[in-house]
């Protein structure tokens, strides 16, 4: 195969991947820019009515600004908490085999498989008894707790692949294994940390199952709750829903773009050589 042909093939495959992923988003955009009466398809190509009023109506109608703020506060703080708690747990589990750590790891792993719906009623009673309904702190702790199994699993798996020499050299320099983790190992975790931030962050940003019960007041509403306002008792306001969904999507995409630069080839590999 000639290099030109190979290059061309690469672009073709890349182009296909982009196209497949993006078509439904185009339909979403189309819905978001159509007049309420014009959700039917006309013509071969989807040319929207460019009715931008939907975005304004969606923003005002569901008080998206406030929802954006709430979602940001909850997601950022919960993800920060997850990164620190889960990386520490992952490190201890990966590096120090004890009965305690094994139990913790297996418990977390097993709970990843338990459908969360099973705890709906008991969790609700708990949230009520700790006065956690309609508060940021309880929602942050709750969503962070729910994301822990996956995060610890990710961290533990990746730390196991790092050679122990990483922190042992630091220990020889007088660190304890505890401080060596924060001084040295943590910096090798960037790819997995960005994966954790992206995966759990999006889960929390899109969380509906818990938010629907525990964030009841209009001031505490998050983006998914705000979007659900466009589903009516009968039917839905699709155009406004699509517009709100696109607005709610923007910050999530931004965060993804910020964090994906840590997927640069060789961070770990290059550093390990030294």
């Amino acid at each position, binding site marked *: 195969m000639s290099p030109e042909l190979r290059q061309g093939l690469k672009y073709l495959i890349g182009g296909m991947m982009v196209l497949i992923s993006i078509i439904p988003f185009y339909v*979403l955009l189309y819905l978001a820019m159509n007049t309420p009466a014009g959700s039917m398809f006309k013509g071969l190509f989807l040319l929207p009515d460019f009715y931008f009023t939907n975005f304004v109506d969606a923003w005002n109608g569901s008080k998206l600004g406030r929802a954006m703020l709430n979602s940001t506060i909850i997601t950022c703080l919960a993800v920060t908490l997850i990164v620190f708690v889960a990386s520490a747990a992952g*490190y201890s589990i990966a590096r120090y085999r004890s009965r305690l750590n094994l139990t913790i790891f297996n418990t977390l792993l097993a709970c990843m498989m338990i459908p969360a719906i099973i705890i709906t009623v008991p969790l609700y009673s708990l949230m009520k008894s700790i006065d956690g309904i309609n508060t940021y702190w309880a929602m942050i702790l709750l969503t962070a707790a729910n994301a822990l199994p996956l995060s610890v699993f990710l961290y533990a798996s990746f730390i196991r692949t790092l050679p122990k020499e990483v922190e042992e050299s630091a220990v020889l320099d007088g660190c304890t294994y505890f401080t060596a983790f924060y001084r040295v190992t943590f910096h090798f975790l960037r790819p997995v940390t960005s994966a954790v931030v992206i995966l759990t962050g999006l889960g929390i940003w899109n969380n509906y199952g818990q938010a629907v019960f525990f964030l009841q007041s209009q001031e505490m509403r998050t983006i998914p709750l705000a979007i659900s306002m466009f589903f009516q008792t009968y039917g839905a306001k699709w155009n406004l829903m699509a517009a709100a969904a696109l607005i709610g999507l923007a910050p999530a995409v931004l965060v993804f773009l910020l964090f994906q630069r840590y997927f640069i080839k060789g961070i770990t590999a290059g550093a390990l050589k030294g």
Partner: protein
Amino acid sequence: MRIWIHKINANLHRYMALPAILLFGLFFLYPLAQGIGISLTDSNGMTTPNFVGLQNFIDFFADDRARNDVRITILFALGSAPLLNLFGLLYALFLDRGLPGKGFVRAVVYLPAVISPLIMGYVWYFILQPERGYLAHVLKEIGLGFLDVNWLGESSSALVVLIAVNVWQYVGMTMIVYLAGLQGIPADLYEAATIDGASRWGALRYVTLPLLYPAIKINVVTNIIGSLSVFEIIVALTDGGPGYATESLSIYILRMLYGSFTGYSTAVALILFLIILIPVVLFLRITRKSEYEL
């Protein structure tokens, strides 16, 4: 005194998992224990529940609708989990090879996972709806209207559509984890392999895949879990219908909970846990053995 503090410091790394388990214990394990208790009762969320032992579990296996839902759930996962891993890995390998604008491709492929699957499911319905969807419309416009078959109205073809949409939605997530794994493989290992005369396939088989094991493990496990607990995509595309033909266990559990069968729905959730647990444990057992062989 200083020795004492030093001793704590020196051992601190052994207990670094405690904050995680404390937080998790309060918000998951503690309610879970109560939830398991509820599964042994005939609770309807209103009247005082009676202890019924394992009756809920017996009822489950005697119920036609429940058995059908188990079948649907497993069929869905059998299609969805392997395809997600296959495409996720292929995408990651392709992007890892270096392509101008790969950051863009990566972001776009990941885009579906960023948005709620419920909303995306409805958008897919706008595209795939028989007779009225965008696809049907395009087919009609270009004279291929006869291809517009009622995909979503039949259980088996609807299942294929549901699997395809699920793979579309989450392939980016799988890809991300594989990419993170690929970044961890030192480039000099490939060089060494090529110098040793390994073919590209050989390098993949003997260098990449074994070193990618942590990522494979995470992806297989999360995809098994995700596929077996599928919910939103089905709600949006078929709502479990027609009738109960595409109802998954997760939908069943929620409907039972909302239908005042609280105790029963909790029991079904535990059964779903077992359905997820078995393939995950099997996978981890089998691969752990071969991990050391490699």
